[in-house]
């Protein structure tokens, strides 16, 4: 081999070429090292992905049961049909026609202008459009869903997706614009919508067009889908079913107030039993869901088998939402190595059941009693309602607590709504600001506490040494001697001849009689003696300032004191002793307080879901004598002629409010002075400018009821918004709650009639 002679120019030039070659290869080696050595592990994982076929195995959502084991919510097996968005939007036909045209005119295609291409594609379009139509006709025929309805669903999906895309694109544009504005490089053009308008996920993904398809129809549809494997999919679409969505209740009208009384049963269909508490599902997965349970834990990288996927149903309200993670369960996963056939399988884990403390039939019975068709939640002539017209619908709520456990047995808010209404016409649920069916009044709306607080104030005053039960108090009509217009007793009015309880009875009132007669002067006195600080502490001990931790979204605290001011003024304390002034609470607060009274000061935090947490007990240390006096006052309020919870007075007649036999009822009524209910604020400058929809007092009745001669077993709180006098309006409803407790076997004395339960018909 001849030796290199570097004095030769040619040889030197060859060395230049060698250097260039080596330099080029060195640079390529650098990039090769970057890919293989620096990013090798990551890229290997990426490269191995296609080797593994992953198939998710659907899980089953846990059931929701009531306290007796009745199934309130359960997954039912069925199938859904998904169509790719290109099929739904129709763009598939054009894409396929373009492919046809290109295939047929491959040689000329590259030379054609865009316009000429479009014209050529349109000659192939009718065939593909007909094919698309045939797909939809097939789906319609096999599912039994009319073609028009399918068209409506298509249109709705396209409209929703386009709205979403517009929103996403605008967000992207704004983000890009922000980057552009932050950079100083003005050689780059300002970003436009066209720069960011790439398809969003929903525009390249399948959407459910048919739900709840039966086995047989699904089998036939699979044949159709096999011809279009990327366009149509039949998937497991196990649907949430609510067996007590609709319940027929036979209501005994013989126990109703005389004007409404009939010696017969009226069957009432209750739609959406316990919808507020149980909640419902939504079919869309939101970004929040994905962020809350990402597919892989960003810190550990572990796969979460409970993560959300497109098309998942998500708990959207009530227990379905609050216990989403408990109910949801985890998917199974089948991993098959396509090269080796190796199978790795993780079995699905079904969601856990959630048992509520509610009795769904008791709930349904109470809801039926509050059906306006039966009259108790419509303004009646004997209600004495001076602000709401006769026949107008009244919003109301009833809560039943088990005294022994603090469990909520029923929590009814009327009017309510059905899940079908929410899913098909959700806006209608939110369209009525006066009756606001979406509000779960039992726990989410505080009302002025009114006179129902009086037995509690009595106990507190005695316990704190502010009052001696042996001292009677004279009713003077008005609390301050020189101010007859202020701090008056309810009896000190022109309609009662400006009388006083002392003038009527001829003696000063003891605690029980003061309670039974609901004498304001007696309790003003106790309020003045307790003072503001102790009054605040008293209500705080009842949990008024806190929302209940039931696991339910939307629970509200009561109001205690004026906003921004800690101190309760003496005059405010006087008013708060009769439940007026700066004190309001929810019906659940009221029932809880009365259950505590029945337990003689042992407070048990109410619960809605069994086993969620250990019961929270607190002994308030109430004076036993005071509790006995309070309970005696409540008993007299029902049993004695002079009791405010004793009777409803008509023009010439009267009848007992509570007419259940075999039980002992102790109750207190209250009429709470309330602020107006206003409509939506039209100009956003404060509630004052919002139109007044309704005025008038809220009607309360709270009762403790147990077997005759026995201890109170259940606490019942009823409130009727702007219903007027408590005894006449809320009392009959509380009476029906007691009858419902009897009918469901919780109290002796129920009739032989039983209800018929009707499962809701699931819409397809």
């Amino acid at each position: 081999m001849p030796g290199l002679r570097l004095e030769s120019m040619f040889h030197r030039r060859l060395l230049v070429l060698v250097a260039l070659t080596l330099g080029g290869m060195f640079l390529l080696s650098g990039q090769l090292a970057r890919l293989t050595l620096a990013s090798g592990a990551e890229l290997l994982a990426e490269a191995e992905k296609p080797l593994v076929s992953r198939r998710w195995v659907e899980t089953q959502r846990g059931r929701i049961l009531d306290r007796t084991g009745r199934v309130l919510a359960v997954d039912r097996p069925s199938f859904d049909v998904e169509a790719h968005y290109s099929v739904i939007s129709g763009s598939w036909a054009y894409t396929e026609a373009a492919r046809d045209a290109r295939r047929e005119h491959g040689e000329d295609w590259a030379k054609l202008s865009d316009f000429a291409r479009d014209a050529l594609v349109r000659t192939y379009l009718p065939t593909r459009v007909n094919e698309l139509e045939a797909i939809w006709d097939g789906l319609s025929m096999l599912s039994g869903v009319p073609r028009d309805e399918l068209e409506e669903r298509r249109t709705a999906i396209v409209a929703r997706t386009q709205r979403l895309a517009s929103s996403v694109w605008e967000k992207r544009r704004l983000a890009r614009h922000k980057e552009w504005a932050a950079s100083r490089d003005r050689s780059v053009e300002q970003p436009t919508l066209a720069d960011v308008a790439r398809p969003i996920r929903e525009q390249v993904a399948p959407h459910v067009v048919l739900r709840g398809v039966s086995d047989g129809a699904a089998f036939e549809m699979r044949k159709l889908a096999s011809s279009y494997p990327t366009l149509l999919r039949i998937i497991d679409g196990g649907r949430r079913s609510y067996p007590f969505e609709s319940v027929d209740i036979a209501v005994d009208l013989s126990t109703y107030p005389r004007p409404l009384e009939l010696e017969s049963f009226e069957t009432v269909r209750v739609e959406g039993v316990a919808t507020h508490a149980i909640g419902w599902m939504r079919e869309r997965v939101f970004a929040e869901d994905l962020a809350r349970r990402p597919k892989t834990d960003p810190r550990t990288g572990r796969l979460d088998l409970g993560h959300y996927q497109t098309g998942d149903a998500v708990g959207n309200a009530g227990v379905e939402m609050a216990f989403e993670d408990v109910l949801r369960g985890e998917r199974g996963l089948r991993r098959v190595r396509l090269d080796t056939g190796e199978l790795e399988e993780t079995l699905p884990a079904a969601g856990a059941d959630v048992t509520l403390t509610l009795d769904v039939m008791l709930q349904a019975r109470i809801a039926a009693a509050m059906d306006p068709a039966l009259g108790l939640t419509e303004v009646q002539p004997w209600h004495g309602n001076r602000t709401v017209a006769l026949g107008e619908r009244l919003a109301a709520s009833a809560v039943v607590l088990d005294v022994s456990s603090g469990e909520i047995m029923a929590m009814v808010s009327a009017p309510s709504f059905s899940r079908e209404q929410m899913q098909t016409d959700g806006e209608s649920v939110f369209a009525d600001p006066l009756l606001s069916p979406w509000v779960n009044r039992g726990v989410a709306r505080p009302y002025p506490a009114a006179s129902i607080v009086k037995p509690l104030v009595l106990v507190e005053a005695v316990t704190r040494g502010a009052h001696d039960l042996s001292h009677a108090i004279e009713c003077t009509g008005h609390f301050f001697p020189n101010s007859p217009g202020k701090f008056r007793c309810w009896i000190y009015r022109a309609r009662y001849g400006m009388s006083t309880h002392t003038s009527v009875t001829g003696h000063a009132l003891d605690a029980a009689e003061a309670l039974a007669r609901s004498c304001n002067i007696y309790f003003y006195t106790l309020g003045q003696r307790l003072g503001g600080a102790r009054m605040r502490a008293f209500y705080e001990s009842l949990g008024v300032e806190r929302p209940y931790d039931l696991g339910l979204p939307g629970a509200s605290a009561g109001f205690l004191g004026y906003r921004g001011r800690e101190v309760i003024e003496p005059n405010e304390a006087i008013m708060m002793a009769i439940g007026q002034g700066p004190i309001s609470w929810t019906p659940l607060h009221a029932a809880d307080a009365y259950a505590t009274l029945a337990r003689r000061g042992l407070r048990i935090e109410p619960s809605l879901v069994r086993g969620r947490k250990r019961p929270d007990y607190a002994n308030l240390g109430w004076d036993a004598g005071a509790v006995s006096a309070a309970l005696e006052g409540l008993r007299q309020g029902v049993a004695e002629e002079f009791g405010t919870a004793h009777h409803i007075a008509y023009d010439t007649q009267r009848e007992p409010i509570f007419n259940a036999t075999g039980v002992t009822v102790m109750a207190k009524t209250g009429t709470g002075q309330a602020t107006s209910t206003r409509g939506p604020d039209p100009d956003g400058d404060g509630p004052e400018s919002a139109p007044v929809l309704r005025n008038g007092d809220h009607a309360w009745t709270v009762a403790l009821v147990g077997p005759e001669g026995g201890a109170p077993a259940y606490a019942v709180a009823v409130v009727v918004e702007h219903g007027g006098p408590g005894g006449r309006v809320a009392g009959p409803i509380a009476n029906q709650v007691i009858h419902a407790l009897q009918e469901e076997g919780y109290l002796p004395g129920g009739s032989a009639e039983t209800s018929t339960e009707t499962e809701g018909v699931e819409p397809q």
Partner: protein
Amino acid sequence: MSGAPTQRETPIERVRREPVIGSPRTLTETAPAAQIPRVSLRHPAWITLGASVGLALLGIYCINLTAGVSAEGLSFHATRQAVFLLLGLGAGAVVAAPHYAHIRAITPLLSLAAIALLVFVLIPWVPEAIVKPRNGARRWISLVVTDFQPSELAKIAYVLAMASYFRFRKNYRTLKGLIPPALITLVPMGLVLVEPDLGTALLFGPMLFAMLIAAGAKLWHLALIVLVMSAAAPAMYPALRPHQKARVQALINQLKGDDRFNDSINYQGDRAQTLVGAGGLAGLGGEKSRAVVDFNELPEDHNDMIFAVISNRFGFLGGVATMGLYVLWAGGALLTAAGCKDPYGRLVCVGLAGLVAAQASVNIGMTIGVLPITGMTLPFVSYGGSSLVTSFLMVGLIFNVAMRRPAYLQRKSFEFGKGG
């Protein structure tokens, strides 16, 4: 010393005994039979041949690897490639046999034939049975058993033609003198560009530059041209076809870290780089690599993208070793040029070295994501009969030059002093 013949005749003695009449220039222009017929089998072209065979065997192995997990034995493509390897070796031997001066003599004819074939594939009325367009490109002539790509032959013919053109000239040492070779280059380059085959067309540039560098063109002239062309390159972008623009755009996006187009215009590039990186340091091993390559569905994995398969199977070390084989190939060719005094032989070796090095670099560059993807094979490795056979024709040419030892009195060409 008294006139008796020595035991072994020196070249000087031989020239004196058989004097060649004419000027020194005629020494290299005399008929081949009159030249010194020295054939040697000890020469650096063995390096080139060895690298070629090594690359071809590697190609057959990797082509077989792309047959998928369900394939057994040697796949159809690998078998064909093995057959074409034998054909290529035979074709190389045929080209190596006659003295390259004979080839130089017919270079004008070969060049015209190559041009004619390039024109032929562009003639629209040629039946599709002979020239069938693929994806809108007219590059292939059907030979029934295989397809022949005239541009492969044109690259070799171009090297021969330019070597012939440069051998006694020195005007390319001026800027003005660079214009004629540039215009000559535009003829095949333009025809290939019309096919369209941008990748192959761009290879004419490195070939020309390699030969100009070796021939003694002033380096600063060449550097200036490179600078001007680099500056002007963006202005050529609008002239690109849509799919070419898409590939450039895909590369730019990928270099910016934008992976939005990995499922569309950058799909091939993304898959290729994934497979390359997955190989790690030493590769995945046969069966695993076969499965990974199969299920990643890399388009043209047995052809233009074969380097991704090599890297996946043999990792970084295998990739570098493959590049090393190309360096050896080019090194063998350049050593052959270094040992040759004849200007034609020298430039043929340099031009072919430039061609193979450039083609390999571009192919590897596009596979590992530093260059836009163009339809270009990896020499000796990618699947394709005409590609492999023409590659071995190049080996035969280099072998041819290497075997013919120069005469001692032959004037060394392209020696322009220390300037330059």
